[in-house]
């Protein structure tokens, strides 16, 4: 432990002496941080319709399936997607609405399932925290309706339910929606992929190979 402690001190000493002419005290540093230039686009310029269309276009570019629906028709839309997937065994986070779990399927509710058990599920259904249209990115904060990180990872098929009010145009708009920085966050931009062999994009290496998204229009109703 003594060497570890001394290395900590040694590195801090080296850093402090290396930066002594430029490092600022707490107040001046906070001021310098606040004054950092941020001239990039913060808020998107697209209309709501254009933003949603862009999100759909991006998801399709990633070869993700996209279906639009209304809150009333959501359970039916989910049932349809599940039927089309050809799978029977699904894992879900604990706080999904009961009406999303269509009859006729085997539902495993994740209240701390072992990885081996999740591995035997063929698909997963989750909600999401936010989505960014500019890059077609879905963001999970792993709440009780989005599920632990592992459940949206091991099954080969991921059905993600996204409310249109959760879709923003730019990445900075997502960050402004985080009142508090999340402890855990995963961003998903299309299904798992690699281009390691001759730069040929191949879908599905380790994460889910199939990503399906249902967009629930919860904005027009208001």
């Amino acid at each position: 432990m003594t060497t570890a402690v001394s290395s900590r001190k040694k590195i801090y000493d080296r850093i402090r002496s290396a930066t002594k002419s430029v490092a600022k005290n707490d107040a001046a540093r906070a001021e310098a941080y606040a004054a950092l230039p941020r001239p990039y686009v913060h808020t998107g310029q697209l209309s709501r319709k254009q933003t949603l269309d862009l999100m759909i276009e991006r998801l399709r570019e990633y070869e993700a399936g996209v279906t639009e629906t209304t809150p009333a028709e959501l359970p039916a839309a989910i049932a349809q997607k599940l039927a089309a997937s050809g799978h029977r065994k699904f894992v879900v986070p604990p706080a999904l609405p009961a009406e999303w779990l269509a009859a006729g399927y085997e539902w495993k509710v994740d209240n701390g399932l072992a990885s081996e058990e999740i591995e035997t599920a063929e698909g997963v259904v989750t909600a999401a925290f936010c989505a960014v249209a500019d890059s077609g990115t879905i963001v999970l904060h792993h709440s009780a309706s989005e599920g632990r990180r592992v459940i949206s990872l091991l099954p080969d098929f991921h059905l993600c339910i996204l409310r249109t009010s959760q879709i923003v145009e730019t990445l900075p708009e997502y960050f402004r929606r985080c009142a508090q920085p999340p402890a855990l966050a995963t961003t998903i931009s299309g299904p798992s992929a690699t281009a390691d062999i001759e730069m040929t994009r191949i879908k599905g290496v380790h994460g889910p190979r199939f990503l399906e998204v249902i967009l629930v229009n919860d904005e027009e109703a208001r």
Partner: protein
Amino acid sequence: MSHSASNQPILDPRHALPFPKAVLPVLRNPQLRKNVAHAIDVIQSKRAKLVAEKTDWQELRTAADAMRMHVLENLGAYLEQFEQRCTERGGIVHWAADADEARRIVLDILREEKASEVIKIKTMTSAEIQLNPYLDTNGVKAYETDLAEIILQLGEQEPSHIVVPALHVNRSQVREIFSRTMGLKDLSDEPRELTNAARHYLRRKFLEIPTAISGANFLVAETGAVAVVESEGNGRMCLTLPKAMITIAGIEKVLPRFQDLEVVLQLLGRSATGERMNPYNSIWTGVTPGDGPERFHVILLDNGRSSILASEHERQTLKCIRCAACMNACPVYRQTGGHAYGSVYPGPIGAILTPQLMQMNYAQSLPYASSLCGACYEVCPVKINIPEVLLDLRAQVTNRERKDLKRFFDPMYLGLRVANLLFSRAWLFHTAQFFGRIGLGLFTGSDGWIHWLPSVGGKWTQTRDLRGLPSQTFHEWWAARNKEAQ
């Protein structure tokens, strides 16, 4: 290029050949050059398209440049904040002054975990400290899980790029490696089938090996969080399934606040792989009960970084976010690939980072492995002025060599000292011109060109011809012209 017979890792700058020598076998390998050029062309065209559509690209670069510099100037304070927050959230923070200490810390943790196997996410810091051979010697088997890293590990090859490390290997070579090492006789060379083979090879390992090692793309001082950027999902597997997790992060990786990711994440994917966003980003904070590893260690690695920090001109080297856009844009890298750089960091960023990490004691040839064309600076998402640093490092190399007694009679330095003298007195210069014309005349062909010179002059004529000296100097012509006019 495989491991050398002496079992000394090839990409260790302490043992690597100088760049002009190391590059020769590559230049004679047309297959490798074709593989590299193909991969580079694909990434470059994808990147160019996505950068062109991003209307605020230059503004993002400006923000990233200023933010990264601000962090480096205040690195002590931000690291302290990261350390405190990460610890509060259940992480254990270790400090490694050099590669040797980092390796020992990793091994100690693995011994504590009673781990004989470990799964790894592609990490440059682990390659930098040559972790895998060390673990192997100490009885721990490390399994790389990134597809490119598997290709290299199973094929016993060295990485040649920091983002797509196996870009020098083509599909039929991958097929050969996989079918030999995985025992798959009927494997085709379809990338889809090869990728599938890797998926199956690793699936059980992800589920069964309870210890993992990662690097970090970013550390967040405000929250103590770590961010890892990836494509395949192997990262998410390693970050989620194991019981214990070790992250090896360079001390320069820290960002002040969570929100600052909005700048670097927009730049990184587009610069690195030509994607609007890479398929997966993972951000986690210490230990989250019930979700992911129960024990989490961060090793903060110095290994030469703090000495780079000390120099006002070279400090910018540490702004790097490891996107590899500079090597993709580099006309030298495009011809040579990565191995000739003799370091895990090739290309323009490697040419400035490697010698500095080595405190200028090794890899002195790398600052010269550039035409100074500036393409690297133009594409760099955090605006590292690589040509400026290259020139500065060249000056440092020369200053050192000059003071080296053994170099005193080196023909190059002798010649430059003589030139220094000649250029300082007009009469000496004119005398030298007179004798030079006679001397070089002996080597000048009937076509007016010099095709061969002895000794140090041969360094020029090896690869290009030199025009013979004209029969009249400018001074002589000027004097004669004035005389005529009178």
